[in-house]
């Protein structure tokens, strides 16, 4: 069982702050690192993987500093996001080389085991240059698993995978998490993270925005103030009726759009009450559309929460 501790870590590149005072503890089980593109997920993973020093703060594995410490790789496997591998090797040769580089006693057997785990034996003797994206991803996985590490870091592992490959990899990671390994993967897709990770860390604009199980993250995301654009047969009467209800916090008559802009603070109640209120005032709803459903706005809300 291994734990990665990030304490008040920041990392900047020149004037750009990529990671801003993040403190997170990643323990056994599957953890998802969620955030929009460019949020600093890769920078954070690179710090955990020992490829970047934090500008300030510390990043440790079981209390040992990770930066400039090659010995941590005995316990850590890394699946990088980038495609490049030793393309002139076959999958088997590549995994074998990784086993040898770890100094394992029986690298051949370890390589074969890792290839079996990711179900790549059938193509193991083909050159990597002939592999599809999903096959590459699985061989990368095998190379990271070859020494049976207690920590596995994966940077955007599902990018470019088809649904079947995605399910396969999810199942594999789930098993590893259940076996007590510390598995951390990054993704910018909430549904992906939700399906797999019992625990989610949200990173937005380099800051640690939220932390918890997916239900808590979901709730944070759905409980936030929602904005709606509403058109009806009598906007003013509807506005008066809605502001009297507890579910709303603000209503604006948007004259140019000829519509109401409503800010709902109780999402559940608002969605139930809106049709009821309209009906009781004999108003017909013509348009009800959420006006800020983009992932970015969801994330930016989380930062301020």
């Amino acid at each position, binding site marked *: 069982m291994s734990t990665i501790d990030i304490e008040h870590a920041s990392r900047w590149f020149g004037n750009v702050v*990529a990671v801003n005072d993040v403190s997170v503890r990643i323990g056994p089980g599957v953890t998802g690192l969620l955030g929009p593109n*460019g949020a*600093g997920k*890769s*920078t954070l993973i*690179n710090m955990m*993987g*020992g*490829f*970047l*020093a934090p500008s300030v703060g510390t990043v440790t594995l079981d209390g040992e500093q990770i930066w*400039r410490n*090659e*010995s941590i*790789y*005995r316990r*850590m*496997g*890394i699946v*990088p996001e*980038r495609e*490049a*591998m*030793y393309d*002139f*090797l076959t999958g088997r040769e590549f995994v074998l*080389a*990784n086993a*040898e*580089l*770890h*100094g394992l006693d029986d690298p051949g057997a370890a390589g074969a085991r890792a290839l079996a785990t990711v179900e790549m034996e059938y193509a193991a003797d083909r050159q990597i240059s002939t592999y599809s994206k999903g096959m590459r991803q699985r061989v990368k996985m095998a*190379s990271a698993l070859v020494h049976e590490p207690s920590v596995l870091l994966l940077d955007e592992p599902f990018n470019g995978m088809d649904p079947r490959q995605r399910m396969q990899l999810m199942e594999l990671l789930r098993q590893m998490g259940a076996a007590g390994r510390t598995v951390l993967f990054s993704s910018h897709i909430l549904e992906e993270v939700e399906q797999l990770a019992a625990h989610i860390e949200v990173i937005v604009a380099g800051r640690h925005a939220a932390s918890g199980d997916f239900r808590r993250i979901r709730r944070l995301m759905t409980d936030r103030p929602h904005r709606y654009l509403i058109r009806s047969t009598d906007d003013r009467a509807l506005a008066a009726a809605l502001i009297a209800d507890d579910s709303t916090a603000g209503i604006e008559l948007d004259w140019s759009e000829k519509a109401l802009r409503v800010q709902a603070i109780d999402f559940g109640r608002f969605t139930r009450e809106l049709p009821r209120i309209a009906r009781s005032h004999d108003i017909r709803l013509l348009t009800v559309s959420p006006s800020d459903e983009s992932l970015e706005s969801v994330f930016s809300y989380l930062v301020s929460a």
Partner: protein
Amino acid sequence: MYDPTVARLTYRALLGRRRALILMVLPALLLLIATLVRVFDASSDDVATQLLSGFALATLVPLIGVIAGTGAIGPEIDDGSIVYLLSKPLKRSTIICTKLFVAIGVTLLFSALPVLLAGFILVGASQQIAVAFAIAAVVASIAYCALFLLLGTVSRNAVVIGLVYALVWEALFGSLVPGARTLSVQQWALALAEKVTGSGVDVSSAVSLPTAAVLLVVVTVGGTWFAVDRLRVLKLAGEE
């Protein structure tokens, strides 16, 4: 100091199909010229030293050194596959030294060995010319590889910088500006050749042998040490 797996990955990448062909062109040319000179009976000690210092030592050795030295690590850093070496419990010095050994081996194979053969084809054992230039090529190969491996570790434009150094600095400036010749691997290697050849042969270097020896060691050891240091803090490219 040495890891056989790193070595295998390095030489397989270095001697991949197309690169091996490029590496073979220049030594083949040298041997062809040497053979032609011999066949047409135009060979003499002077012709041999001119060909071996003017073409072999001034062009062949540095060019092969650039290809092997930068090629042993540059492409892996460029495409990010070096991560598979870095994420292992391997000393960074082991990675660099192994790559240096492989680069030196390849450079010797494609430059020092052809120089020795060309020397024998041209003048046989006369005045130790063949051996002298082969020794110079060996020493130059080692220094070039250390230098260009360092370049490959610190710069994306290692090949260009290496070519500019080898061709512009050593060849052009070396012949125009006397001072530039003091800082030239080629001249240091020539100092050694000068020592080995017989007295009747016109081989001369701009630097004295002790100076050359010291500078060769400094460049080789210092370059390697610095490359290890840079690899320790290498930032992987293509990230945020």
